C-alpha cells in the first residue's frame, strides 16, 4: 500500500546516493522517499551493486572464465583488493575483465572490434554518428500509418531476444485508449556473451536516440526512459552527451536515463519496469502485457537498444531495403562473438549467416572449435555440427537453442563442456529472482546436481535434470526459469562423451 506522496521511483537512486546498503541506509532512504523501511531494505538486498557496495567486481561470464577470470581474481586477491565475483559484465570481447568500485573498467585484456565502416550497413557501427535527426523529420513527414507500413515491410523483429515483430508492439501501444503512453529502452544488456548494445551506445548514441524519438512520436509518448546497466558508465556518458546535443530535435519528449543496480533479471521487460518503479526486479504475471499495462500501469512500448537503432535506416532508406539486408530472416543483425576467435567484437551481418561466416568476419577460430553458444547463456551449447545452421530466430529454435541476443561464444577443444555448463548454471542460480518456486529451487537443484556429478562422476546425480527442466519450463513465471537448464541439458545431449570422462 503506497503512502500518499511517497516517491518510490526515487528509492534506488537515493539508495545509491547513500552508498548502497550501509548501516542505517534503509531508514534514511525511507525518510526521504516515504517508502517503508523494510520495503527499502528488501529492494536494496535484491541488487548486487547495492548489497555489496564499494568493491571491485570480477566478471564470471563464460568468455571471461575461458580467458582466465580465475587468474584475474587471484591477482586481485594477492594485491589485497576487495572484490566480488559477479555475473557477466558485458565486456566479453575484452575478457577477462574487472571493474573498479566506480564501475569503470579496470583490468581489460584488449579492445573488441566492430565491422569496418560501410555506408551500406543499416547500423554501421564503424561509421560516423549522424546527429542531423533527418530520419525523425522524415518519419514525421511520412505520418504514422506510412511509418508503420515501412516498419512492417522491414520485417524487423525485436533484437532483445524474443524476436517479436516490432510493428505489432508499436501499433498495439499506439492503439491503447489511455492518453498517457511511455517508451522504454531496454539497455540492461547482461546476457553472458552479449555486448552489442554497449557498442551502439558508445559509437552511435544518436542512432539510438533518433530511433527512440521516432518510437515516442509514433506511440504518442511524452516521456521516455532508458534503463541502462549500472555497470555501463561509458555508455551513460555517451548517451548524456548525445542527449544534450539532440535536445533541439527532441521537443515535446523528456528522456530519462535510469541506471540499473546489478540484476540480470531486470532485462526481462516487466522486471525492468518494476526496477524503474523502485521495486525488487521481480517479473510480473503476463497478461497484462506492458503494451497494455506497463510502466505505472500505462501502455508502454519497450524496445531493445538495437531494435531502435535499426529504425532510422528503415525510415530513411525504406523498410524493403532493410528487409533485404537479411538472409534467412529480415534485416542486418549485430552479432557479438567472443571466446576462442581471433578478433572478438560486434559484427553487423545479414540475419541468418552461419557460425563459420561470423567467425571468418572475426578473423577465424583459435584452436580447434568444438562447441558454441549462439545466443548467450539461455541458448545452451551446440556442437560444431551446427556450424552451417543459420544464426536466426527460427532455425536455432528448431535446433533446440535460440538466437536470443546473438551473443555467440565459441569454445575450442580445451574446454570441458560440463565445466562450461557449470559456469552457466551458477549464473542462473545467482540471477534467479527467487519469486517463483520452480526457478528459485530448480536453478539451485540443477547447479548442485552438476556439482555432485563433477565431484563423483556418478551419472545418478543427473537423473532428474530433464524432469526438473520440464517443470521449470512449464511452471516458471518468466523466461529465465524456462531456459535456465539449457546449458546443462544441451551439454548432456550434445556432448555425452564429456559425461564419460573420468
Amino acid at each position, binding site marked *: 500500500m503506497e503512502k500518499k506522496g511517497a516517491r518510490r521511483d526515487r528509492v534506488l537512486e537515493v539508495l545509491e546516493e547513500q552508498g548502497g546498503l550501509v548501516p542505517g541506509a534503509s531508514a534514511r532512504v525511507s525518510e526521504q522517499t516515504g517508502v517503508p523501511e*523494510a520495503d527499502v*531494505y528488501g529492494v536494496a538486498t535484491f541488487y548486487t551493486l547495492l548489497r555489496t557496495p564499494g568493491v571491485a567486481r570480477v566478471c564470471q561470464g563464460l568468455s571471461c572464465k575461458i580467458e582466465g577470470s580465475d587468474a584475474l581474481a587471484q591477482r586481485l586477491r594477492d594485491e589485497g583488493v576487495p572484490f566480488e565475483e559477479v555475473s557477466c559484465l558485458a565486456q566479453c570481447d575484452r575478457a577477462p575483465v574487472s571493474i573498479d568500485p566506480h564501475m569503470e573498467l579496470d583490468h581489460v585484456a584488449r579492445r573488441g572490434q566492430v565491422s569496418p565502416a560501410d555506408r551500406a550497413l543499416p547500423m554501421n557501427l564503424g561509421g560516423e554518428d549522424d546527429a542531423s535527426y533527418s530520419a525523425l523529420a522524415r518519419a514525421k513527414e511520412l505520418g504514422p500509418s506510412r511509418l508503420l507500413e515501412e516498419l512492417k515491410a522491414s520485417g524487423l523483429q525485436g533484437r532483445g531476444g524474443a524476436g517479436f515483430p516490432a510493428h505489432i508492439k508499436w501499433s498495439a501501444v499506439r492503439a491503447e485508449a489511455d492518453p498517457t503512453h511511455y517508451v522504454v529502452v531496454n539497455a540492461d544488456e547482461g546476457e553472458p556473451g552479449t555486448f552489442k548494445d554497449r557498442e551502439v551506445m558508445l559509437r552511435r548514441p544518436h542512432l539510438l536516440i533518433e530511433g527512440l524519438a521516432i518510437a515516442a512520436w509514433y506511440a504518442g509518448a511524452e516521456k521516455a526512459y532508458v534503463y541502462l546497466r549500472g555497470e555501463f558508465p561509458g555508455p551513460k556518458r555517451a548517451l548524456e552527451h548525445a542527449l544534450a546535443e539532440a535536445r533541439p530535435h527532441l521537443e515535446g519528449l523528456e528522456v530519462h536515463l535510469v541506471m540499473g543496480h546489478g540484476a540480470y533479471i531486470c532485462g526481462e521487460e516487466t522486471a525492468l519496469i518494476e526496477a524503474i518503479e523502485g521495486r525488487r526486479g521481480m517479473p510480473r504475471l503476463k497478461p497484462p502485457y506492458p503494451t497494455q499495462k506497463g510502466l505505472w500501469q500505462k501502455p508502454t512500448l519497450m524496445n531493445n537498444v538495437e531494435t531502435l537503432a535499426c529504425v532510422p535506416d528503415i525510415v530513411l532508406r525504406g523498410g524493403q531495403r532493410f528487409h533485404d539486408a537479411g538472409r534467412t530472416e529480415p534485416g542486418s543483425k549485430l552479432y557479438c562473438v567472443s571466446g576462442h576467435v581471433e578478433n572478438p567484437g560486434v559484427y553487423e551481418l545479414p540475419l541468418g549467416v552461419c557460425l563459420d561466416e561470423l567467425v571468418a568476419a572475426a578473423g577465424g577460430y583459435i584452436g580447434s572449435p568444438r562447441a558454441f553458444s549462439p545466443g548467450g547463456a539461455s541458448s545452451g551449447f551446440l556442437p560444431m555440427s551446427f556450424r552451417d545452421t543459420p544464426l536466426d530466430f527460427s532455425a536455432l529454435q528448431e535446433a533446440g537453442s535460440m538466437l536470443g541476443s546473438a551473443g555467440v561464444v565459441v569454445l575450442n577443444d580445451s574446454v570441458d563442456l560440463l565445466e562450461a555448463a557449470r559456469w552457466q548454471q551458477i549464473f542462473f542460480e545467482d540471477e534467479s529472482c527467487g*519469486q517463483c518456486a520452480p526457478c528459485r*529451487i530448480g536453478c539451485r537443484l540443477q547447479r548442485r546436481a552438476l556439482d555432485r556429478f563433477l565431484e563423483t562422476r556418478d551419472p545418478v546425480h543427473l537423473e*532428474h535434470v530433464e524432469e526438473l527442466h520440464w517443470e521449470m519450463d*512449464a511452471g516458471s513465471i518468466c523466461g529465465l526459469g524456462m531456459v535456465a537448464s539449457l546449458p546443462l541439458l544441451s551439454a548432456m545431449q550434445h556432448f555425452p562423451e564429456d559425461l564419460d570422462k573420468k
Partner: protein
Amino acid sequence: MKVTLNGQVVDAREGDTLLDVCRREGLDVPTLCQDDRVDPMGSCRMCLVEVEGQRRLLPSCALPAEDGQVVLTESEKVKRHRAVLLSMYLSDHELDQDGLPTERGTGNKLREHVLTHGTGPKLPPIEAPRQYRVDANPYVHFDPEACVLCNLCVRYCDEVEAVAAITLAGRGAGTTIATADNRDLMDTSCELCGGCIAVCPTGAMTEKAALGSDWREEEVVRTTCNFCGVGCQLDLHVKDDRVVRATSPEPGTTVNDGNLCVKGRFATEFIHHEDRLTQPLVRGEDGQLHPASWEAALEVAARGLLGVKERHGADRLGFISSSRCTGEENYLVQKLARAAFGTNNCHQCAAT
C-alpha cells in the same frame, strides 16, 4: 459468461478469477500464496491450470475468467506439474521422519498438498543459502526452513495492516523474509498483530507460546474478545483446560474479518494468571478484602453511591467505564449514570 471446466460448461461472473470459478464448482485447486484479503501474486505456482490455446500453464488465482475459456485442472500436464513442483518444495523444506513437511502445531498446507496430489522425483535438499536471524520479540517465531516464500505475510502486513514491517529480502534461492536491517520485530514498525501467523500456509510463522502444541489436540472455543468494544470474535484453542493460542475465525465470517490485534491474539496470559480476580471482593471493617456474593457486593456499591448522591448531590459522582467492556456495557454505564443517578459525569477510557 460461460467457462468450460474439465468438460463441464459452468457460469462465471464478471470479475471472477478462474480460481473463483473452480472453487464455486467445488474443484480442489491447490494454492499456497493465495488469500482473498490480498492481491494475487501467482508466485507459488500451485494453482496453475491448462487453458486451451495457451502454450504455458497459467495461474488460476490471477487469471480473469473469460467467456468461452476452456480450462483443465486435472490434465496429465497439470498433474505432472503439481507432482514435480511439490517435489521441489520438499527439497527446500524442513521434513519430518516420514519425509513430509513438518507440522508446527498449526497444520501445513504444503503437507496436505503432498498427501493429496503426490510428488514426483525424490530430490536432495537444496540447502538454500539464506540469512538467519534471531528475533527477541515475545510472540512471533519464524523458521525460514518451513517457509515457501508465498509472501503472504509480507503482503498482509502491507496491504491489510498498512504496517509494512517485513519484506522479501535477498535474491534467488537465498530469498527469505526479513525486517529492515534484520532488526528484531519490536524494533520496527511491527504492531505484533500476528497476522503474519494467520496467513502463513505452512506454519513457518507461529506463536512462540504455542510452539510444540498440536492443533489436533486443541479444543476450539469461540468467544468475544474483551479487550475493547469492537467485538472481534476469537477462537481460543484450549488444551488441558489452558488456552494455548488465540486465532480469528475465517475471514468473511465475523466482524474482524480474519484480523486480530496484538491484545486479542497474544494477551491471553491473564486468563490463567494467579492474580486474576474471579469473584467479587468487599472490603470489611478490618480493612481487608473478603470474597462476597454478587448480590452482597452490588448492595454495598449501591449503598455507597446513593449515600454520596444524598449527601453531596448527583454531580459529585463520576462513572468511568472501560474500553475492555463491550459497546452495550458502555451504553449501560452511561444509562446508569444519567437515568439512575442523574449525572452526566460519565467517561470511558477510550474516549478522547
